[in-house]
């Protein structure tokens, strides 16, 4: 997307792309993406906004669907759950991913290829399959790490799944299934830092910690911001984990634990697609607001050379 913006801007400035076949090729390359984005991203979003503002008789109802879903008894708890989950998930994602990729990049150069592959492996599995794997891991009676669960005093699946444990539990699942890809991305970002800078720092007597804190992390801030935006959006839309863990525990997790599940309940249990759309527009606004905040605070889309 950044390349797309860059091409467009340079095209406007110098009118180069009209003459330059490379510029035209750019449009060809992005066209497939744009088409799919329109079909599966932009159009459904517009449809959701329309549904959220209308009722089943196709009349405009203003913010009626929003106020109606807001007063639903499940609305508060669902957003509270997801808020707690996001705090735990985003904090652990930022700290652990950056830490692991710094270690991969610095200390473990020899083993890093293998480790990179290992980190990435869970991400290569389909998301649902990885979650299914966790369903076995979480049952103290069947789990290979049952001793660990029992050492916390959890002897049954019901104790592992206690409502207070859920945000942490889902974080563990999400981290295991999703963080590996980010570690690889961060590793790539660290590689883009010129060696001369690191060498100069080392000659000046900077320790590994100083290099990491003063040079490496500031230079990959944009990547971290990028990760934050996507992880936030994915986190607010949590659905598969609570849904599957609920099925595996015979319904011990409420069917509307997360806002996305609540939206699903609206659409498919109550047949109320307008209410469901209002909830998903809530999530869209949250995601956009967070993205805007992060983009403007970190200057994610600023280009290094004017």
């Amino acid at each position, binding site marked *: 997307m950044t390349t797309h913006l860059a091409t467009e801007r340079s095209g406007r400035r110098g009118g180069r792309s009209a003459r330059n076949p490379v510029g035209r090729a750019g449009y060809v390359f992005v066209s497939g993406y744009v088409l799919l984005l329109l079909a599966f991203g932009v159009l459904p979003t517009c449809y959701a906004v329309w549904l959220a503002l209308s009722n089943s008789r196709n009349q405009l*109802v203003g913010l009626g669907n929003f106020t*109606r879903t807001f007063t639903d008894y499940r609305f508060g708890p669902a957003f509270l759950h997801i808020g707690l989950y996001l705090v735990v998930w985003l904090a652990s994602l930022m700290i652990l991913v950056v830490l692991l990729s710094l270690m991969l990049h610095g200390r473990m150069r020899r083993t890093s290829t293998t480790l990179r592959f290992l980190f990435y492996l869970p991400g290569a599995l389909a998301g649902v399959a990885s979650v299914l794997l966790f369903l076995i891991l979480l049952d103290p*009676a069947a789990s290979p790490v049952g001793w660990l669960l029992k050492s916390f005093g959890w002897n*049954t699946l*019901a104790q592992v799944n206690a409502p207070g444990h859920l945000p942490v539990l889902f974080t563990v699942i999400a981290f295991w299934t999703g963080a590996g890809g980010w570690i690889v991305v961060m590793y790539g970002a660290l590689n883009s830092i010129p060696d001369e800078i690191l060498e100069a720092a080392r000659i000046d007597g900077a320790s590994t910690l100083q290099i990491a804190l003063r040079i490496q992390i500031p230079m990959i801030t944009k990547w971290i911001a990028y990760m934050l935006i996507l992880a936030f959006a994915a986190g607010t839309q949590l659905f598969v984990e609570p849904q599957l863990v609920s099925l595996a525990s*015979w319904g011990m997790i409420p069917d509307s634990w997360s806002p996305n599940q609540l939206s699903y309940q609206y659409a498919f*249990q109550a047949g109320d697609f307008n209410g469901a759309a209002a909830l998903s527009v809530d999530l869209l606004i949250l995601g956009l607001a967070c993205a805007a905040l992060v983009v403007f605070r970190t200057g994610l889309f600023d280009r290094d050379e004017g």
Partner: protein
Amino acid sequence: MNDDVPVSSRRRLRHTAVAVLGAVSLLALAACGSADPTPPATSSPAAFKPVAQQQGSEITVWADATRVPGVQAYQKAHPNVKIKIVTYSGDANGANDLQAKVQLFDRTGSGWPDVAFSANVNDGTWASQGKTPYAAPVNRDIIPKTTLDGFSDGALDPCVFNGNTYCLRNDLAQNVLWYNKSLMDKFGYKVPTTWEEYQALGEKVAEEHPGYLVGTAGDAWTPEVYFWASQCTASTTTGARKVTVNLQDPKCTRMAKLLDTLIAKGSVSKDTVFSAGFIKNQASKVLMLPGPSWFGQVLFNSTFKIPKGQIAAASPLKFEGDAKNYTGNVGGGLWFVSSHSKNLKAAADLVTWMTTSDAYQGTAGTYPAYKKAAVTWLANQKKTGYFAEDVSPVFKESAELIWPGWSATQYSQEAIYSSTVVPALNSGKTLTDTLDTWQTAITNKAKSLGYTVN
């Protein structure tokens, strides 16, 4: 911040943002309709008009993995009928795939399966509702009355709405008192006939043989096993979308107290019988277990692997103050014929065969809802020699003892119990403490689906 972005483009961005915001708020303010979702209009019986029929056209059948071999057997016996079989979850364990898909098909206007099986006994509540209900009223010239009359008394209750029958029942899941005869004989215990005796025995077991169990309270279907039998008013519909929920009724609290006592003593488990831990550690220590008729083969034989000749069933328990004993039922599948089907004749024939034929029902894993098939089924059960005693008299008796005050609702009592009460029990609270929370959970859920609760 981003000082290198040209001022003009920032201004343009701001203008666009203002324009978009303006447009959205205009739309938002331009309200002219009510935001209330359309109340599900109950279509009057006269409204059912079949779509244009195409004789001999292919029918699509959705069934779960357990029922698919039956459909395949039908296909083999009727090679002229064109059938497309789709295996799906069957809405087991609280899934609502069928409803979700039908909602989508209703929006797109095509795709409905001609025949669908559901393991969720509540599915009739939504399938019979709406502008064009998914389920066809089979009593209106689709399936003959003589066939419908052949089902056990009350078996079709979860299918009947506004005087029409919208589905056929696959099986009954009437609750009985299961017990391990070998263990009972070994310990020298007598099978209880009342809940009071049951409680006394449970307390005795806890002292004399700690670790042995007389029941479980962590199953999703605990309400249907214990509270239904206790005639608790947890789910009593009093009219179209009107339900009474009163868990402080003495008939509810007496059961909560009974279970609390036995949970505290340790002879009623807070776990569910299907959890890996229970199967591994507790299965061989089950002395008694009130539960549905399908526990016999599905749970004791296939899951717990209890050897032949140990398990037997006794009549549902009665409270000493009550005139007679009542029981509940846990599930019992439904077969729907789609009101959108282009080949109602073939669909109806298949559904009739699946629910009434000795060839399929006689050897099914669950107790047939159709009376004649049930006789064959019981005879076959006897032949397997699995049970320590013939279960026929108990099964037949309890099929007629289901308390009629507990109704099918669009929401699942099981989902509410397991997400509200089970975590509370596991955090150390008692059932009696949890009744109010449970009541609120049921009331909220019912209201969110348009029920009036009193």
